[in-house]
């Protein structure tokens, strides 16, 4: 049902753009925050320093990407909850659309918006980025796709189980925001106390961040086999789990 998938995806994109906060929330705010951050930090640093700074070159972009992806996941959880509560999921299910098609369409919508937001940031960010920066675009994009699918699949488990729209957003936030602190983005994993270090190994976001950072730095794929395997495992488990527990109404 490829036609149904593309049709539904396009329909959902149009509908989302009609939301009062749809376009503003997903494009404008992240890009604006990014521009403001760029002005505050970028202009103060001499170009050479910015290029060599790990913070500017790797950590901030990865942080931005992860924030956007997690926001997309939270929004996905909310939309699924709204659609379930309103009986929209049920109505769509009583058509030749396969359940997987309906859910994949929503993931695709989020991927499209995430991609557009990131693209805008890259375009806008060129003003603040030193010109000599070589970003391995293809590798970073692929890594981002892998990380996004894995994080989205976790979101689906939450979306499968929350009963009402009111709890959807808090439940998602409760799962994802604590992951931030332990994912090795700002505090290196080795600097964590042993127990937290152990815990960090069980947080999927840790592997997403490691993979993204590595690709930003220009690492070869072979250096990140563990990350990819971990993310794939999370994806497989979460999809299997949500297929079992997903509620249509």
């Amino acid at each position, binding site marked *: 049902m490829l*036609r*149904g998938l593309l*049709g*539904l995806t396009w*329909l*959902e994109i*149009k*509908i989302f753009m*009609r*939301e009062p906060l749809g376009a503003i929330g997903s494009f404008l705010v992240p890009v604006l925050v990014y521009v403001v951050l760029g002005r505050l930090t970028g202009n103060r640093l001499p170009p050479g320093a910015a290029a060599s700074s790990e913070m500017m070159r790797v950590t901030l972009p990865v942080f931005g990407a992860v924030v956007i992806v997690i926001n997309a996941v939270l929004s996905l959880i909310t939309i699924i909850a709204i*659609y379930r509560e*309103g*009986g*929209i999921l*049920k*109505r769509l*299910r*009583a*058509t*030749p*659309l*396969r359940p997987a098609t309906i859910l994949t369409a929503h993931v695709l919508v989020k991927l499209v918006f995430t991609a557009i937001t990131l693209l805008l940031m890259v375009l806008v960010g060129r003003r603040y980025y030193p010109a000599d920066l070589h970003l391995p675009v293809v590798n970073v994009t692929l890594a981002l796709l892998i990380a996004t699918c894995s994080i989205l699949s976790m979101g689906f488990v939450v979306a499968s189980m929350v009963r009402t729209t009111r709890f959807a957003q808090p439940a998602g936030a409760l799962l994802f925001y604590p992951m931030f602190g332990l994912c090795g983005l700002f505090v290196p994993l080795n600097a964590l106390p042993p127990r937290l270090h152990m815990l960090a190994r069980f947080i999927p976001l840790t592997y997403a961040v490691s993979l993204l950072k590595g690709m930003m730095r220009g690492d070869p794929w072979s250096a990140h086999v563990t990350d990819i395997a971990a993310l794939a495992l999370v994806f497989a488990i979460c999809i299997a789990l949500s297929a079992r527990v997903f509620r249509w109404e």
Partner: protein
Amino acid sequence: MAPVIAVAGFRKTYGSTVAVDDVSFEVRDGEIFGLIGPNGAGKTTTMECVEGLRRPDRGSIAVLGLDPFRDVYKLQHRIGVQLQQAQLQKRIKVVEAVHFWASLYGKPATDGDRLLDQLGLAEKRNAWFMTLSGGQKQRLFIALALVNDPQLVFLDELTTGLDPQARRAIWDLIRGIRARGKTVFLTTHLMEEAERLCDRVAIIEHGRIIDMDTPERLVARHCPERTVVLTTTDVGVEEALRALPGVERVERQDNRFTIQGRGDDFVGALIHGVSAHAIPVQDFRTVHPTLEDVFLRLTGHSFRD
């Protein structure tokens, strides 16, 4: 001809609650069949199992010769469905919904446009779903249920929450569906709706079907008494009325008499007697028992309780 829907010994439980038990019925080709009963009686559960959206615990269900749960995707091309309390995306346009639905069934978009015309929604083509009135939303759901030109249409509590005028308009549309040779399976908790619309009804309560027939025959079977209200200028006729053949009870309120008897020939016999006794008649009205009375008779309680 084989029945369009055949349900036998169907049972469905949710946890320890038995929603529907030992339900059997058949829906014939080209009829409007109504499953009627109060809220929570098991109507929607039954309908959703017949549609293939839920799996029955026990019993057999065949729809157009298919097992609805196992062959749900095959079946969905041949049936049209309107669900109770379903919504669409708030900001989806009417025209987008019908075109998308048409595309799902491999039908041209013009089929959707034609339905919008027929259902009086052409002016609302570009309106968002959230801006439609209750009646317009239901007409859109009818359009979506018809867009694949199905043989069998399911309508679950279609007119609930609509004002009487919108309800009548929907009734006409449903008769129109039957006129096109399709079979309609509907549920309603409105007895008047069932009586006006359905060729046959099954009365369901507490998950069991308590009787099933045409509305007229159900009334004749369970409420055979006939009531005539007669207004006359001569208030001294009470005894004469009481003496007429077939009359069982007479009550007087001022110059209005309520006369009860039973049987098909009661009203005719009464007219004959009134005329033979030269009773001056100002008004003569027969009161028919309704499905509502049938329900009361069968369950011992009123429908709205």
